[in-house]
């Protein structure tokens, strides 16, 4: 979008026009009514300039080219635009881009890397969605994956009911949710098994160290 002034060009030469304001905790730079926002997006320190009216969803999609996050309703009812903001699931259509100042954003494009999988690999949730056929058209999938990650970060072994309640803010029109819920519960098992294996391995190493 043409409102997206390139940060590197705009700021140094226009320092005289800049002021400061606080948004999202840290101080933000305001230039000709536009705000310079510094955030960490999928692990990468990122700077963008936005208008105060712009949603985080609009900036992610239209300015930063992160179109994996989808817009289904624009008013927080469908969950297709769910991302993690400092680890919390939010509908990015209801978050102003200026609120991202100083915060950590995780979108579906960064999900695989959080599992420590090799480049090109996928997160256990993504793998479970593929194997269970938990997607049909795929438009709601990124939102479900991000909401499900937040669930498993909070509650590593959810019951079916807990998973259904947590994911009730994400609408899927294709699957009837059956395979999505199965995939999420299966991914929880896989992640838990991997954690237990890692703990056991660590314990085994300690035992070896302790051994005289």
């Amino acid at each position, binding site marked *: 979008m043409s409102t997206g002034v390139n940060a590197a060009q705009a700021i140094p030469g226009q320092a005289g026009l800049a002021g400061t304001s606080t948004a999202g905790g840290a101080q933000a730079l305001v230039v000709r009514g536009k705000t310079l926002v510094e955030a960490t997006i999928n692990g990468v320190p990122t700077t963008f300039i936005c208008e105060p009216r712009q949603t985080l969803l609009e900036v992610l*999609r239209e300015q930063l080219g992160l179109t994996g996050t*989808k817009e289904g309703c624009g008013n927080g009812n469908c969950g297709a635009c769910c991302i993690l903001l400092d680890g919390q699931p939010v509908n990015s259509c209801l978050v102003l881009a200026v609120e991202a100042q100083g915060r950590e954003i995780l979108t579906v494009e960064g999900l695989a890397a959080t599992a420590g999988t090799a480049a090109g690999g996928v997160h256990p949730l993504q793998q479970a969605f*593929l194997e269970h056929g938990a997607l*049909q*058209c*795929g*438009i709601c999938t990124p939102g479900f994956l991000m909401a499900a990650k937040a669930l498993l970060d909070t509650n590593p072994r959810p019951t079916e009911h807990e998973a259904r309640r947590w*994911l009730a803010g994400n609408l899927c*029109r294709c699957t*009837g949710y059956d395979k999505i819920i199965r995939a999420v519960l299966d991914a929880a098992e896989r992640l838990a098994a991997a954690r237990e294996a890692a703990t056991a391995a660590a314990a085994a190493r300690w035992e070896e160290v302790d051994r005289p």
Partner: protein
Amino acid sequence: MSTTVHGAAQATGPHGRAYRVIGTRPVRHDGLDKVTGRARFGADVRLPGMLYGQVVRSPYPHARIKAIDTARAQAHPGVRAVITGADMPALNTDAVAELGEGAIELKYASMLILARDKVVFQGQPVAAVAADTLQAAREAARLIHVEYEPLPVVEDAVAAMQPGAPLLHDDLYTVIPGGGKAERPSNVAKHVQYERGDVEAGFQAADVVIEREFRTAMVHQGYIEPQSATALWSPDGRLTVWTTAQGPFTVRQQLADLLQVPIGNITVVPMEIGGGFGGKIQVYLEPLAALLSRQAGRPVKLTMSRAEVFVGTGPGSPAYIRCKLGAKRDGQLVAAELYMVYDAGAFPGSPVGSGAVTGLSPYRIPNFRVDGFDVVTNKPRVQAYRAPGAPQAAFAVETVLDEIAEALGMDPVELRLKNASAEGDRLIYGAAFNRIGFREVLEAVRDHPHYRAPLPPPVPEGADESADGAAGSGTYAVGRGVAAGFWSGASLTSTVHLTFNPDGTVNLILGSSDLSGGRAALAMIVAEELGLEPHEVKPIVADTDTVGYNDVTGGSRTTYATGTACWRACQDAIAQLKLRAAQLLEADPESVAFGGGEFWLWEEPQYRISLKEVVANLQKTGGPIVARGMVNKLPMAPAFGAHIVDVRVDRETGKVDILRYTAVQDAGKAIHPTNVEGQMQGGAAQGVGWALFEEYVFDHGVMRNPNFLDYRLPTALDLPMIDTVIVEVPASEGPYGVRGVGEVPIVPPIAAVANAIARATGVRLRELPMSPERIWRALASAGRSAEPAG
């Protein structure tokens, strides 16, 4: 939990060989892109110099347009194009745009895109702008001043049929049975009639006759991806459109017709499609984006908001249905009468015809009469919605059947088994069924553990209220319902091409949009036939310049018809590759056989060469090959389903919980069983939404709930796991006996839920949605509601 029940033929191929790929569950080809966010959907298109557009829509459901002033919008900074109805070519023709699933007269389609002299529904476009930014386009759209003269509104279809009702179109004359036209204009576009036997005598001979009235609400397909289209009209007259559509070729045809552009100048590029269910066949934004692009000389993207999707696209038809059935004491149906009014919205074209056919054809009924009416009202013009017309009719017929079973003291499944249509029986319009699996489906329901299991306990876990069983006096009541449904399935036209890579992998070039994973099943057919692994076949949904003509993905036709084209393309490939194998084997082509991915000599089977090797040597044996497969018309492959549902009704609040759900369906042959189960589960969920929650709430033609908060889709919390039983009775034609599976599963759920509520509470709901309020009122008026505790 899912199970598969085999019908007459076992899951083996020609010559008794077991399938190697068919019936397995590989990860779908488009899966990785969709779980990583890389898949590109309609709104993900971004072109250099692209402008953003905004549509101006009528706030009035019925009004004359007196003037449109665009001067202020045109002067707004950043605005590059402004169009109104005057920019659409006038179409003075009676030609009809065939959409594959539904049709619309071109002159009406044109007005649906952009109104001219008057508006006939709220949300009808009256102008559009394109600007450098979406913000500028929205600001400019607000500066367009339209002067309206409001006209009387007709919101209800039955009211619209009455003499003296305000007319939407003064050139609309009812098409009457036999093909003539009425003498005076009205809001009734069409009257269809089907008749067999002697209906009056039939009812007189019946021991039990039940007649009921049903009303269903206007509902939306509810695809999560709003419509989005981007157009680039190049100065040399070429028009390219990137869009999210069920039929790229159908989009191309509509653009050529509506904009009066030579069809060869148009390229439609299909993006991934975020759900359609019938609602993304008709074009809405594409012609507007094209006209804006022509004026601006730059690409223009238009994307709908969710509110625009609700008011500006085509929902499913609301219906009023009167259903009368008569049966003998032993359960044999002897007579039926259906009076059906289907609301088309602002322009003719409701699915009343398929409602009529799907309503009665599942059963052998010697005497019947069906009168169906296609009626216009000041509401959004309806479009296909998954088995268009069938769920409404099944709600009526399957509810009355349940009442007949109750009246006769018969098991509802046994009643259906006694009357179920079979091969050779006639659909109501006269054609005979070929091989169908309705009986097998009903037997699978009857024999399913769910059907025989005791009802779940009435009191929810953790509730302190006591209850004393079904239809008792406690707060909670539980009940089980069953209902069946049918869709005859479409064939239409499909073309596919196969090209071969030197490593032996195959490109499968398709023109069928993939709404739900269909390309995986199509690739599996190619893998099966050519002896490859599913992921050695690369399915590509191509643009309209790259592949031969294909009709829409709709009518449950893709795996059946496009699948047949894939199968034929493989036979073409094998025939061509045989010639090359013969060269490599230094043998006569006639002596070469093929199977399991290998060519060999009939007489000397020790001489063999793999398909991959033949492909690797194509350049040395005469150059590359292209194989093609086409279908133009296949016989129908009708599919039946039946659902079992357990509900709990809170008699204090009217709230319904779905406790257990089992969907049974004849898939002919499940190519990719996971995808088949997904269709069954998704269809069941949509049906539950239609039954319990979903409706357009209108106030004099103005929709009051155009958002997902007030128009409530089922959530994960509203549904249990949905068990599936895939029955496999092979279809008469098509590869492996496959039948379409997409549409059937939305047909039974409404009546299944209504029947379960009735069995739980003793009260029949005949109006949708069966909302808590409606249920509570029905219980209260029957003296069966529960008083709030203490």
